[in-house]
């Protein structure tokens, strides 16, 4: 047989990113490329700089040094040139364009669903909002999309008119994921998406995320401190400690054959029931 195509186009590049709040607080010298369709897990203890890195990558916080480059792909990008593959320097483009990216081509799933949802408006409106931002106005279509996505994340579509504040934590998290994925973003950032949930709810969410990433061909940057979650969802891992990446590579390789002493400690500290 012939050798299959082993490389995929780059989607997001982090080039020597540093964002420090103090000595060893934040992230430093982070350099990697995320390819299309890849799920990258960022693991490490709390305080290792994972969330800071995620904020920088997702356009929420400018780095002290370094660049984040987003490749728009063949289809081009909002506010850019359609049909032209562009490499956008995230912090060199305008604030408006960066926000448009985050709203339309990217998605951000917060650890706390209350940060990603509008609790006072209905579940359906939460899902429809991002579609409206893309210019959809037809009420029937928006409602149909809301019901379809509630079904896909295993929420009862009959509750489309209920406010998320009447939902449980696990249901809110699934609604946040529906709200994020309804626009079929190319790139999704997730910060501890299963943190704070009961294990049974967590399992359901993990299974759902696995299926959705495969079906939609999503590229994902996933921050988690849970190595079991990382093993299930991530193709590739970066292990962070004190703001730096100490080891990176194929998920199985990092977890089965860790090279760095910190990674060995991390892997051997996991409890398996």
């Amino acid at each position: 047989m012939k050798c299959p195509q082993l490389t995929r186009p780059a989607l997001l590049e982090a080039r020597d990113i540093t964002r420090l709040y103090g000595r060893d607080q934040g992230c430093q010298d982070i350099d990697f490329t995320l390819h299309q369709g890849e799920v990258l897990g960022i693991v490490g203890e709390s305080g290792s700089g994972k969330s800071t890195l995620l904020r920088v990558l997702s356009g929420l916080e400018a780095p002290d040094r370094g660049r984040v480059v987003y490749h728009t792909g063949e289809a081009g990008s909002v506010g850019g040139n359609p049909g032209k593959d562009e490499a956008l320097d995230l912090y060199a483009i305008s604030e408006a364009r960066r926000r448009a990216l985050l709203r339309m081509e990217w998605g951000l799933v917060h650890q706390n669903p209350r940060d990603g949802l509008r609790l006072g408006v209905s579940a359906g409106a939460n899902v429809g909002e991002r579609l409206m931002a893309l210019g959809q106005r037809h009420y029937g279509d928006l409602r149909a999309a809301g019901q379809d996505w509630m079904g896909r994340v295993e929420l009862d579509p009959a509750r489309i008119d209920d406010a998320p504040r009447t939902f449980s934590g696990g249901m809110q998290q699934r609604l946040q994921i529906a709200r994020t994925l309804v626009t079929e973003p190319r790139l999704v950032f997730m910060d501890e998406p299963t943190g704070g949930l009961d294990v049974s709810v967590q399992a359901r969410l993990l299974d759902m995320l696995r299926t959705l990433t495969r079906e939609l061909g999503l590229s994902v940057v996933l921050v988690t401190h849970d190595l079991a979650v990382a093993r299930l969802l991530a193709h590739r891992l970066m292990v962070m400690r004190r703001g730096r990446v100490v080891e990176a590579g194929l998920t199985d390789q990092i977890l089965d054959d860790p090279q760095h002493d910190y990674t060995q400690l991390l892997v051997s500290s996991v409890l398996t029931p």
Partner: protein
Amino acid sequence: MTAIRQPFLSASALDKTFVLHAQGGQQLAVMRGLELSLAPGECLVLAGRSGIGKSTLLKMVNGNYRVSGGRLTLHFDDGELALSDLPAQAWHVLRRDVIGYVSQFLRVVPRVSAREVVMEPLLSRGIDTDEARQRAETLLARLNLPRRLWDLAPGTFSGGEQQRVNIARGFIAEHPLLLLDEPTASLDAANREVVVQLIEEAKARGTAMLGIFHDEDVRERVADRLLPLEGHMLGAGEPAPLTEPSALTPASCSAPASCSAATPSARHSTPQEPLS
């Protein structure tokens, strides 16, 4: 195997060493200077006593373990591909299209049904759901997994039932290279027979297979050749002394006389089998 055939997989002077940081950087050399050549349609069986580290070799070919020294190469029609130091994204493609792995234990994903576990390798290639389901059901039926279990997550299945799900998952995608880690260990005679048939069909398709079989009867029936590992696998001597990193290069690694009492699986408290 008398005819000289172009190999699909080859190893040359292959070494594996684990460095245990928690034990003061102790180096555990488990393999030295392994040579192998595996042609399409051939089943090469790793021989050697239990605990010698046969699975280590399979895990290196599957990318779970890094190559410490030497070469591990896939021979494609359009050129060779060295498996050491491949970027992670290349492994995703190789595991989807080229290298299949039937591990000893099924990694159970909560809530995913046995049928879906088996369908997944096909779905990841973009094969249509109906076709994937049909092929999964055909295999599960051949392996005599009761139909009432197909919709259940394999977490509560018996060892033999889980193994049959794992075998179906490993064989469904017809990878050109298949790694088999004791696929018949907890099966009854009837199901062992099915696995032997599956292996023979895979050979006929031109699949290259590297396997571990403790069951002598199965081994004799499926093995085209045996690869004795005693001379290369150093899983059972005294611990190797702490050495400088330069000592890891293949040239300076001429078989240390002593090796460790610790088995590789003692390295972590959580030995885990990969799902994919």
